[in-house]
């Protein structure tokens, strides 16, 4: 089962630097809001390549921050973009959005 926030693991990689973790989460949330807007727009246009790129970027950054569940969801969306089959994309994007919410709430604690 994918975890929402592997905080401990990330903190270990950051050598316990809580300030840096907070800074990274802030940057991530700001960037993710932009990326979700981009994804929504790309979906409206049926632009599979753009979906793939945005989702890939989100996936990587989420993994870097220990947002495991979110990273998995973004990977599924990336996969849909890569295959050019966007039928499941609205549901996947919805799932990404929800997972991001969950991460935000968990990380804020």
């Amino acid at each position, binding site marked *: 089962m994918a975890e929402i926030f592997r905080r401990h693991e990330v903190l270990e*990689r*950051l*050598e316990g*630097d809580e300030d*840096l973790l907070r*800074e*990274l989460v802030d*940057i*991530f949330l700001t*960037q993710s809001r932009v990326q979700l807007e981009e994804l929504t727009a790309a979906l409206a246009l049926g632009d599979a390549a753009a979906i793939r*790129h945005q989702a*890939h*970027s989100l*996936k*990587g*950054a989420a*993994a*870097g*921050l220990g947002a495991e569940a979110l990273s998995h969801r973004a*990977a599924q969306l990336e996969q849909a973009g890569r295959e050019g089959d966007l039928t499941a994309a609205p549901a996947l994007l919805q799932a990404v959005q929800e997972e991001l919410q969950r991460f935000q709430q968990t990380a804020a604690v």
Partner: protein
Amino acid sequence: MSGQPTRVAADGAGEGRVLTPPCHGDLQTAVPDAWTVLVVDDHPVARRLLEAQLEREGYLVITAANGREALERLSGRFCPLVLTDWMMPEMDGLELCRAIRGREWDSYIYLILLTARDSLDDVLMGLEAGADDYLVKPVHPMELSARLRTGRRILALERTLRDRNREIARLAVTDPLTGVYNRRYLMENLPRELARVRRYGHPLGLIMCDLDHFKEVNDTLGHAVGDEVLKEFTRRLAGQVRQGVDWLARCGGEEFVLVLPETDLAGSLAVARRLRHLVAATPFATTAGPVRVTASFGVAARPPGEADSPDAEALLARADACLYQAKAAGRNRVAGPGGR
């Protein structure tokens, strides 16, 4: 003269200036041993994360958001270590690798490609594009520092090798006793120098000089003192030439050639007269006490324009003939074409 040829070849052939190590730019004086890493990633979290990890290890970090930006950063400030993401807008990591490999840099750039765990198939393509190594995201700090250590080791090796090659190339064109260029350099470089001035219709002066009665110095005071005289002679000559323009070569024994690009006959004669005076006016200090030395000078020049365009051999022969005249006329004098 301090044991260096008086001139560094502008075209980088043979002789080369000693480059400062690429990772020790002026901005880095605060951390003398730091290496600069260029981090390229389109995601601000990835950039900040890598930056923090690297800075903790003592690296200096610059960042770029895509390949195009990375190339701009590199042109502004050379960076021997590059850590690049693959998927980026505008110019991706693969294109960046190719672009970096397609250009000449101060020294080798060690490229590490960052890739997602599920993109490992792409790694081969990345290595073919010129990456030296790859790392899977998210990057663990220990792995990152180990890979960068490898990179530094390779860069250090490459630098040693390059410095050594440069030194070998320098020695191959240097006269070991006096530190000025040798005959080989003269014969290789004078034609090149002439071709260059011919292209622009510019003049070039050539002074051939020879110490007078040098054999007597060797015979009466010994070869060690003879060597001291040769060194002092070169020092006096070299002190009078324009740094980075004129150059001096020892062609054998006590014979030297001074090449004066962009200098016409009148100018070259003036230089030769000054040199003659400089040699004759003050005795040379040696371990055997002061030694009076004189020298004879033969001057030739390629005039400006196209009318008279001698090749290296012809110009050397003209100067040599004048030198012979100077010797025949009693030594310690300057002779130019037409007995001037």
